[in-house]
Structure formats: structure tokens, C-alpha cells
């Protein structure tokens, strides 16, 4: 069995210290220095560092608020790739694989896992580059299937329910003022006309009061 790999993330990604006002204003309370080690399911620690750095350029932490790093997007991607989706259990994968017109979409043989492994190779010493150099390198692969997936997965990891490993501490939902999957807006639907309905977000587990697990946990 392979040695367990971990990624160390700032403790604030697990919630608690980074606060948002309901008008989406980020409010930085005392930055925390502690680190949390999260076991990886698919990536090696080195691979996870590359992906984390790339996601951070796609959805940066900057003056408009926290980004992919704080939301733990790399953990989200790691779980997606480790599960059935990463192995293409939901894609038609019978040959022959034939190149076709763009209207037919991705017709390749490589699974998301394989696409990531190859993409990470291409990114090379990415984690050691300066932010500008990182952007340059990403721009040079913008038209690849790897980058398309990476960009899509970054946004998914920011704004999907935390059961999937990203959106840690509901950071993504705080950032956009989304209240989470509430069960009813019967009294609000025709009242908040042009006015923001912003409430401290809750996750699906909190909203439903039941344990929830993502599809990626399903045995295949």
C-alpha cells in the first residue's frame, strides 16, 4: 500500500477566523498561523502543491476576498479525481476514439486522472515560480483540456457544498452572499424585489439536519 500523502493548509481554511459581513465585505480577524494536515486520496503531496498553486492563480486570494487556497479547492479536486468521476465512470469510454469537430466536445481517451497527471508534468516547477511566471505558464496551456478541467474544478471547489471537500468554512458562499440550500423561500420570493436576501450561509448537512455524502464517496 502506498504511503499516505498529506497537504498542509492554513487552519483558517477550516473556518472560524475569516469573517464576512452580510454585505460581502471581507473582515480579516487575526490571521491564524496553525497548519492542518489533510490526507490526500489521489495526488502526491508534491502534485497537490502544484495544483494548489495553479488554482490560486485562477481564483486568487486578493483585495476582493479570499480564494481557492483558503477554500481548500485542492482537497475538492483530490476527492473528485479519487472517486468514480476521476476514473470516468460517468463518461462513455468505448473506442474508437476519433477526433471530431468542436461541437462534439472532448473525444479523447484520457480520464480526468490521466489528464491531471499529464498536466502537472507540463506545469513542471510551477510551485517555485513567481506569481507572474505562474500566470504566464497557465496562459500557455489555456487551450488544453487540462486547463479547461482545472478552471472548471476550481470554480466547483469554491462554490459547491463543503461535503465535497472545497468551500471550506463556507468561504465561497460567504464571498457571494449565498445562504446555502435553504428549504423554503415561500415568504421571501415576492418580497425581496431588488433587495439582497443575505443570510449567514449553512451547508446542506446543516440545512437538512441529516448526514450527507457526495457521489464521489460511492463505491464503484
Amino acid at each position: 500500500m502506498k504511503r499516505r500523502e498529506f497537504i498542509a493548509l492554513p487552519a483558517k481554511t477550516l473556518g472560524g477566523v475569516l469573517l464576512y459581513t452580510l454585505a460581502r465585505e471581507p473582515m480579516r480577524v487575526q490571521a491564524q498561523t496553525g497548519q492542518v494536515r489533510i490526507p490526500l486520496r489521489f495526488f502526491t503531496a508534491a502534485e497537490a502543491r502544484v495544483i494548489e498553486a495553479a488554482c490560486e492563480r485562477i481564483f486568487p486570494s486578493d483585495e476582493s476576498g479570499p480564494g481557492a487556497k483558503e477554500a481548500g479547492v485542492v482537497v475538492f479536486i483530490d476527492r473528485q479525481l479519487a472517486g468514480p468521476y476521476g476514473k470516468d465512470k460517468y463518461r462513455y469510454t468505448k473506442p474508437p476514439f476519433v477526433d471530431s469537430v468542436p461541437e462534439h466536445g472532448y473525444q479523447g481517451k484520457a480520464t480526468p486522472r490521466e489528464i491531471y497527471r499529464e498536466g502537472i508534468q507540463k506545469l513542471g516547477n510551477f510551485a517555485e515560480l513567481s506569481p507572474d511566471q505562474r500566470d504566464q505558464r497557465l496562459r500557455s496551456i489555456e487551450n488544453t483540456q487540462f486547463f479547461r478541467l482545472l478552471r472548471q474544478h476550481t470554480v466547483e471547489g469554491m462554490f459547491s457544498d463543503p461535503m465535497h471537500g472545497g468551500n471550506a468554512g463556507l468561504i465561497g458562499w460567504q464571498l457571494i452572499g449565498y445562504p446555502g440550500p435553504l428549504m423554503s423561500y415561500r415568504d421571501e420570493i415576492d418580497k425581496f424585489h431588488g433587495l439582497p436576501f443575505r443570510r449567514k450561509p449553512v451547508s446542506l448537512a446543516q440545512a437538512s439536519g441529516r448526514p450527507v455524502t457526495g457521489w464521489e464517496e460511492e463505491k464503484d
Partner: protein
Amino acid sequence: MQQLKSVDVAIAGGGFVGLTLAKEITARTSLSVVVLERGRPRKTSDYSTGMDELDYALRFRMMQNPAEETATHRHSSRASAVPIRQYGSFNPGTGVGGAGEHWGAISYRFYPEHFKLATFLREKHGSRLPEGIAVQDWGFGYDEIEPYYWRVEQMLGVGGKAGNLQGKRIDGGNVFEGPRSREYPNPPHKMPYAPLVFERAARELGYHPYPIPTATLSRAYANPDGVSRPGCAYCGFCSRYGCMIGAKAQPTNILMPLLQKRKNFTLRTGCNVRRIVHQDGRAIGLSYFDASGQEILQPADIVIVASWTLNNSRLLLLSKLGEPYDPATGKGTVGKNLTHQVNQATRIFFDKPLNAFMGAGGLGMGISDFDGKEGVDAFPGVLRGGNIRLMSTGEGQVASFGAIPPGEAKSDWGSEWKKAALNWHDHAASISTEAEHLAYRQNYIDLDPVYTDKFGDPLARLTLDWTDHERAQGAMLTQIHAQIAKAMNAKSGGANSRLLERYTVTQYQSTHINGGAIMGASPDASVVNPWLQHWQAQNLWVVGGSAFPQNGSGNPTLTILALTFRAADALIDRYVKRPGALA
């Protein structure tokens, strides 16, 4: 192959159509009915932990798994097809309730002349009709389907406002619709902000806005079958999800509770129907693989094929029942008149927040001033139009993130993009359109010569592309989108007209794929008669959107179910009493 004891009726497919037929047959006769469903059992309580955009809206957890079965597509019969490897321009369902569990519940009727479209267009345009048009009459008129529309609207509990009550035009409803015998069973929904801004602008422009009819309940309602459901809570997890409170009409909440009590009803899940077995022009039964992989023959006196559109045609082709359509000669009927719908959307931006995460599948306002035969004469080259609407269907946070007005960011990633995307988040909506898709000689379904499903059977192959007519329809309707957007004082992000350059399988359009086993007045030009009875094998019925000779502009489920009720009446009241060809 293991052979089971014969039953009276065997139905392939446990979706809206199959279960509606089972409900009618088991309630009104003592016939034994077996429904074979390839997917899993489902119930309303499954859905309360399913309010998750990633798994349901983005990874299609409720849909047919393309890894097991998909279709192939090519743009013309000169090209070779490739598989639709992932969704997709349409989302076929699977499991009990089928796509009826994750539909959007928008419930339009089709226009009266649509049922006689070939006659209508020939009379209006004569020989000036463009090359290749293959529209056909349905074999009956609007007055014959009106009572069935009414029955379905009651069963589902459709809410809306009549615009034409027994010929009297009523402002506030769709004044262009065919005459209704009654007002909708339920009133329209409460409206959120964006559709109201659309309504005001459309009215100022002289158009006739109306609330979109929908089968998510606008109030608590008990239907004529005695099934009670609560009003919609506008949670926004609607289309692509199952409704966790049962406000959206779904087979699991309006049909299964009745069927489970009936002794002459059996539902077998995990049973994948592979062939209609037939001999000497008569269906003998259905053969299927059960969940353990065993091949089984279920003999039956009456066989009903009620799977999703593409699978109805595919089953006929795999079973070698009827003559496959050949576009070169125009001969054969199975697979012809494949249609989708002409979808266009114009993104618009508001200066106020929309709370767009609230909503329901069909919650919104629309106009039909350029729909059906209305308004098209001012637009050269347009024969039929489409609806224009603004809905609050419940935006997903992943899917809606990054909608920004053109020119606000150079890239779709990085700091500048992130800032613009955050700034505009929850400020964007779409004015959208679904227009009638005419049938053409070159658009059809056959069996793929290369690609197979998990059992090794050929996939359905779609040969389908847009023509100048659909592009002209799109241009007309998006011109009106822009006019309304301006009157709304909304910033326009432009229309997605590139979608009509070539048929695109990667971008969702709608699940309204229809045709392939079409109905009509003559066995030379259709697969089933106007009661959806197979022309040759008289104890076989092929029911569903597959029967549409061409596609209407409204969402098709209401019409599919009206045809289902009409078929059920013909089967129960006439065929069962005197088996033979109906006329």
C-alpha cells in the same frame, strides 16, 4: 432465455408515460400490468439530501449514465458519427419516474394549427416552402386533444392564467393560445423581481405577457385521483433535481402512491428491455436483462413501448420491427422526423441583486407574440416562431458564477475576472426562447454501425443539424430579446446565436428531443396511428415524444401526457373490447 408466465400488458419504461398508462389500465380494467424499468426505485424522501448542485446539476446524478448507454451524433449523412461521450445537449432520465422526476415542470399546450402543420404551411406558402421540409399532420385536431390536455393539467395541478377561454381572449393569459374549456386548475405563482421587470417592459412594448404555466404547485392541491401535494417553497432545486416536498408533479408523487395499492400492477426495476419479441406481425412480449444479468422473456397480450424518445425508436430498430427510414429514398418510417427545439438565450444584467437562487422550474413570465404563427410574417424566411421568457428557475452558484457583461475582464480566470464576477454575481438573468423545430428529410435516427452500449447493442445514431430556417427563427427572436432588454433598462450580454451555426452536443439546450416513431394518418408515412397503435403489429403501442411528427415551441411533457391519455382511452375503451386495428 428464461420465460415468465404471460401477463395481459407489459410496458417498457417506468417513466411518466409508462406509469400513467399503468395507472389508467389498472384503475379501469382488471388486466395485469407489468412495468419494466431499467433504473432504480425512487421515492420523494430520497430527495431531501439531494439539494446539491455539484452531484445533481453538474454531474447529472439522476440521468442515464452515458458510460452505459448514450447516442452518437453526426451533422449529415455524409459524415461519420462520434459518441456523445458526456452530457450534453439533452439529459435522458433513468430510474422510476424517469426524466419526469427531474423535469422543469413547464406545461404549455401546443398551438391548434401545430397539429395540422403540413396542411397549414402548404396552404399558407404553397410551393415556396424550403427544400427538405418534412412536417406532417398529427392525424387529429386540437379540439380532439383539448379534453386530454385538461385531464393532464388536473392530474399535474398546473398553475397559470387562461388567455383564451372558450374563444374569449383574456388579458393577462397567453391570448394566442388555443381555446381552453376551463381555467387552469391552479392560479399563477407569486413572482420574483426579474420576471416582473420583464413583464412591465413587454407590456410597454405592446406585447402580451403571461405567467408561464407550470406543474410545480402554486398552492396546496388535491388532484382528481385524490393525491394531495403542498405548494412550492421556491427552494430553487427543481430542474435536474427531484422535488423533496412533492410540490413538483413527478411520477413518484402522483402515480406511484396509487399504483402501489393496486393488485394488478407490478413494477420491476433494474430490468433493461432489449427487444420487442414478435412473430408473424404480432408482438409476443419484451425480452430484458434483469439486475443480475439474466436474460428473461416477459410474454404479454399487449406490449407497450414507453421509454424515452430515442429509446423508443432504438427498440423498434433493434427488434427489426417496421422499415428503417432511408433519407436517400424517403422510404421507411422508423427513425424519421427527428427534432429538437431551437434554443436561444440573451444574458442580461441588472443593477440590483436578484436572489436568483430562489425559484422554481417554470417560475417566470413569457410572451408569445412571435410564437407559433404569430408575428412571423414580418420576418422573411421564418415559418414558425417561439416563446420568449424570463424565468427564475433557481440558479446554481457554480453554474452562474462568472456571468459578467462583455469587456469587463480580458480572461475568464485571475484577479480581474474574479473581481468582475463577484461584482456581477446574482445580477444576471436570461431572456430565453424555445422555438418550434420543423422536421426535415435529413434529420433522423438509425443504429450506429460502430458504437455499442454496455450489452453490445448498437447505439442510436442521430443525424441532425440546423438549417437557415432555425437561424432565421433565432435571429427574429433574439432581436426581440434585445428590444425587451433595452426596455427593461438592463445591460445586454448578447445572444448565444453561435449555437445555431451547427448542432452542438456539448451545450445543454433542452431534453425535448422528439420524433423517430411518429404518428400520422397513413402507414406509409408514420410508425403509429393517431392513437399510437403500431400500424403493423396491432397489439403493440409506442407512446411518448417519439410520436411527435415535429416539435412545438412549448415544453413537450404536457402534450406527451395528453397523447398518453388519448392512447389509454383508445386502448381501454376500444382495443381491449375488440382487439384489432383502430380506425
